[in-house]
């Protein structure tokens, strides 16, 4: 009971009744005071006077309570009366109600669905404690604006920087687990001490690595993910301290992370954000601390409270400047500190906001349609409104009554919207690319319900207000006269404005969808530089324990390529360090014989390894020189194959084949590497404009720890999957074959983002067009029905049916063409919004604009033609008699 009372008090506070109560108390007090004074003026003692005043006033508490209840009860009574009345109105007009609730439900539902993505990705904070203090740390140079860190540089920042509570570095380091005779590849990272402290996470069992684990040869340790611990180790509580075998070597389990340990994202061999990591092992600082040239670590840090990103960056820069004096390789680098949140959601921000904008426009169109419907119904209800006004209803009450009706409709729509949003979520998620940030966190949650409720209320007010205001302006006298047309002019002006805005918004959305379609087609049809069909790919990593030296790796590579190449149905089989468009980005600097760089610059290129048939299998054309052969082995002089971009960059107007480069600053004869061939460019990413310089070493001369197999098949490459798996198993049963994929899948994954943008914007644009067409139809049909007698008169006076048709169509054209033009102008002004989302198509692409303009006008013409034809069918006699 007391709780109910507090609740009532709270509610009263919400509706501004609290202040009213206090004021009334004061008023009563003042009254009693004055009465007391009056009695004292008649010679009473104060005490006596107070008693007399109270008596004369009557039961004070009851008066106050009555007053309080009176306000509340009246308010509630009005509300419930309005609700009942509105429900009766809707019930008596089911077609109207169903159409309204359906269109609103669809549009609000689409908004809720998109909002749940926006909420989960952009609004919800990251799943770490105090996530705003976590930042990513990069190097930044002229050629590479975001670059990875050097391990020994990192160790110096960690020691010298004072901005961070904790700072850590990590690098992708997958592991292989033998489980019941089957080799499985695990997603793994090498992390420095304090990595989890940066994230603010604590192992559920055991502890995290300390700095002693970073010393090479300090004993192998591992931290397991919750998932791995449950699926492969039976969730054993005694796991900490036990040994597990990874990469054919024993590792001691020092900890198990709790469920929900999210990977913060990484640059190199990027792994999707989310609970994607299986194992963490200590990163060990190997090699000579004086060598600062190689960069492969991702940096992450937790700022001390009160330190800003800018302060941390400035401080790191001063540390870096100091280090540049000690190590020449550190010269010319700046530091870049980016909040983790920006880093994770940065790229998806714009597309989400554009989608939210698009779906918001759909809702506006639906509102305009609903307002239009209400307006035409208001004409039918003029008599009812007039009667109510004549009977003494106040304008405010009438507006409130009509708004209650539209609110009831929009709330019903909102309920439907939630059902739609929840059921559309699955398809929406399957559309999103797997590497979309935070995709696993997306769900319909409480904020989405609140959003839907608020949007429903706003929608109800938005589409209900104008019709309600107009209805309340009805003059009770003229309104009561049968068939009166008073106020029609103003009403139809409002309806025209609504149609024009609907058409223009639909036009804007269609242009957006058109641009995205063209951009998607550009991406799909663009020449990637290799042939993506009929390609099967797989990747392998060689555990150091088994493959101790280069020779063993080379032997395996050669045997596998030979075995697979000899299988029937295989055209070419090759091996390389990586595949196009999988995020590989290893770079190296070098010297070129007879050339000098500008100061503070270096010759650099991305480096890969390739077997003889790697290029043939991928379908990358040879432009000059030759591919590798089996003879390009350890005994042969070192060669390198470069791409066209590298030839153009470093040997413009020259023949690159036969030129020599070296990694040594003081090269001896054997240090020189000769360019043996030039191959065509492969775009770095599906949507990059061109290719950066790249070079391939012979795999037989520089084997890599992990290899990608490329198989060009004569038929469906999927048929070769089992054969490739068993070929690997026959050669080495302990090796895990990972990522067996058809190249088409990689290509598809790479255009997933532009595809989802197009599909969703296209869907919204289609919905918008249908709604706008319905709206246009409604207005023209209404105006035709209003002008029936006029048409009848014209026909009776000898007008041709075509004349009537033309009259209606001209009226419609004025609205539609106006709306379309407005839409095109809007699209022009908003063009820069989509600029970064589209590829090789101008945001003001004339073709898209022209087609959309015609499409909208065509659709509207069809929508108007139906009522226009009805106008020509008017029977003059009947039409005139009706008047």
């Amino acid at each position, binding site marked *: 009971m007391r709780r109910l009372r507090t609740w009532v008090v709270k509610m009263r506070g919400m509706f501004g009744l609290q202040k009213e109560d206090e004021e009334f108390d004061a008023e009563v007090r003042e009254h009693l005071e004055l009465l007391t004074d009056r009695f004292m003026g008649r010679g009473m003692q104060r005490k006596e006077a107070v008693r007399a005043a109270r008596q004369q006033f009557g039961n004070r508490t009851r008066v106050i309570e009555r007053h309080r209840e009176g*306000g509340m009860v009246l308010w509630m009574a009005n509300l419930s009366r309005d609700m009942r009345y509105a429900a009766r109105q809707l019930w008596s007009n089911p077609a109207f109600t169903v159409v309204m609730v359906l269109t609103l439900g669809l549009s609000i539902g689409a908004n809720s669905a998109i909002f749940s993505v926006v909420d989960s990705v952009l609004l919800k904070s990251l799943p770490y404690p105090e996530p705003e203090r976590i930042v990513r740390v990069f190097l930044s140079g002229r050629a590479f604006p975001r670059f990875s860190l050097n391990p020994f540089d990192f160790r110096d920042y960690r020691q010298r920087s004072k901005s961070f509570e904790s700072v850590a570095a990590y690098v992708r380091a997958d592991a292989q687990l033998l489980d019941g005779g089957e080799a499985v590849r695990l997603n793994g990272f090498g992390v420095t001490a304090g990595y989890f402290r940066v994230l603010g996470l604590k192992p559920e069992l055991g502890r995290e690595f300390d700095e002693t684990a970073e010393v090479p040869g300090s004993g192998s340790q591992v931290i397991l993910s919750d998932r791995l611990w449950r699926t492969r180790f039976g969730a054993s509580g005694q796991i900490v301290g036990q040994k597990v075998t990874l990469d054919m070597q024993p590792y001691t389990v020092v900890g198990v992370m709790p469920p929900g340990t999210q990977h913060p994202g990484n640059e190199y061999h990027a792994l999707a954000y989310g609970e994607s990591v299986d194992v963490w092992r200590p990163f060990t600082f190997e090699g000579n601390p004086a060598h600062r040239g190689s960069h492969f670590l991702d940096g992450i840090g937790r700022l001390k409270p009160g330190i800003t990103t800018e302060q941390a960056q400035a401080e790191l820069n001063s540390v870096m400047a100091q280090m540049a004096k000690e190590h020449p390789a550190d010269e010319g680098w700046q530091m870049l500190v980016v909040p983790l949140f920006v880093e994770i959601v940065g790229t998806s921000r714009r597309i989400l906001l554009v989608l939210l904008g698009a779906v918001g426009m759909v809702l506006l169109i639906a509102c305009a349609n609903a307002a239009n419907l209400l307006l035409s119904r208001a004409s039918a209800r003029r008599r009812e409104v007039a009667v109510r006004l004549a009977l003494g209803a106040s304008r405010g009450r009438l507006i409130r009554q009509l708004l209650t009706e539209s609110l009831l409709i929009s709330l019903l729509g909102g309920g439907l919207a939630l059902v739609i949003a929840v059921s559309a979520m699955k398809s929406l998620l399957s559309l999103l690319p797997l590497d979309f940030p935070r995709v696993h966190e997306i769900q319909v949650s409480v904020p989405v319900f609140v959003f839907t409720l608020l949007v429903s209320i706003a929608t109800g007010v938005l589409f209900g207000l104008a019709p309600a205001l107009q209805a309340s302006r009805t003059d009770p006298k003229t309104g009561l006269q049968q068939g009166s047309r008073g106020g029609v002019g103003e009403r139809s002006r409002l309806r025209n404005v609504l149609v024009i805005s609907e058409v223009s918004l639909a036009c804007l959305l269609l242009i957006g969808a058109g641009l995205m379609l063209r951009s998607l087609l550009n991406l799909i049809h663009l020449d990637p530089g290799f042939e993506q069909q009929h390609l099967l790919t797989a990747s392998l990593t060689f555990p150091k324990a088994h493959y101790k030296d280069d020779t063993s790796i080379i032997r395996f590579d050669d045997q596998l390529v030979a075995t697979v190449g000899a299988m029937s149905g295989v055209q070419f089989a090759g091996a390389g360090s990586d595949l196009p468009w999988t995020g590989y980005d290893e770079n190296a600097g070098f010297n070129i014989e007879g050339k000098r760089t500008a100061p503070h610059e270096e010759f650099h290129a991305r480096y890969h390894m390739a077997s003889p048939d790697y290029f043939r299998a991928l379908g990358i054309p040879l432009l000059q020189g030759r591919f590798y052969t089996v003879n390009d082995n350890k005994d042969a002089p070192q060669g390198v194959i470069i791409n066209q971009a590298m030839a153009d960059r470093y040997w413009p107007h020259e023949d690159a084949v036969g030129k020599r480069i070296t990694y040594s600053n003081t090269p001896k004869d054997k240090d020189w590497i000769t360019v043996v061939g030039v191959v065509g460019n492969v775009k770095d990413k599906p949507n990059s404009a061109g290719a950066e310089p790249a070079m391939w070493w012979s795999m037989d001369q520089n084997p890599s720890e992990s290899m990608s197999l490329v198989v060009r098949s004569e038929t469906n490459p999927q048929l070769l999957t089992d054969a490739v798996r068993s070929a690997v198993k026959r050669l080495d049963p302990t090796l895990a074959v990972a990522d067996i994929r058809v190249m088409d899948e990689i290509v598809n994954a790479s255009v997933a983002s532009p595809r989802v943008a197009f599909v969703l914007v296209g869907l919204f644009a289609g919905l918008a067009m249908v709604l706008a067409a319905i709206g246009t139809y409604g207005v023209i049909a209404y105006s035709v029905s209003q002008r029936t007698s006029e048409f009848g008169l014209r026909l009776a006076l000898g007008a041709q049916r075509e004349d009537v048709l033309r009259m209606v169509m001209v009226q419609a054209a004025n609205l539609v063409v106006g709306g379309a033009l407005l839409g095109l102008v809007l699209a022009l002004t908003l063009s820069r919004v989509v600029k970064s989302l589209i590829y090789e198509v101008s945001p003001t692409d004339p073709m898209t604009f022209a087609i959309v303009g015609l499409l909208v006008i065509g659709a509207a013409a069809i929508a108007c033609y139906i009522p226009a034809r009805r106008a020509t069918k008017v029977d003059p006699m009947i039409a005139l008699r009706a008047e």
Partner: protein
Amino acid sequence: VAMGERKSEVLQGTLDLMILKSLQALGPLHGFGIARRIEQVSEDVLQLNEGTVYTSLLRLQQQNWISAKWGTSEKNRKARFYSITKRGLKQLQVETENWERISGVIGRVLGLERQG
């Protein structure tokens, strides 16, 4: 009228009417003022629990027949002043006519009985 005699209770509808009339006649008044006015014109015939004035004032406000505004009382303190609205004036007219008609009828009925 001597003390101890029974005073008539004020009917709810009539209190509303009296308040409207007072506001029409005297202009804006606060609750205390209204109570004094009714006391004065009723010449102590009617017994009024002054608190009920406020219940009545609320009802009249909700019907939009009177409006309220904050102002300063004679003693220079903040007080709420009520004044009659246009609608209220119309209502007063209607009610007055009603009252006259009904009291006329009742008067006639009672008069007839006395004669009979």
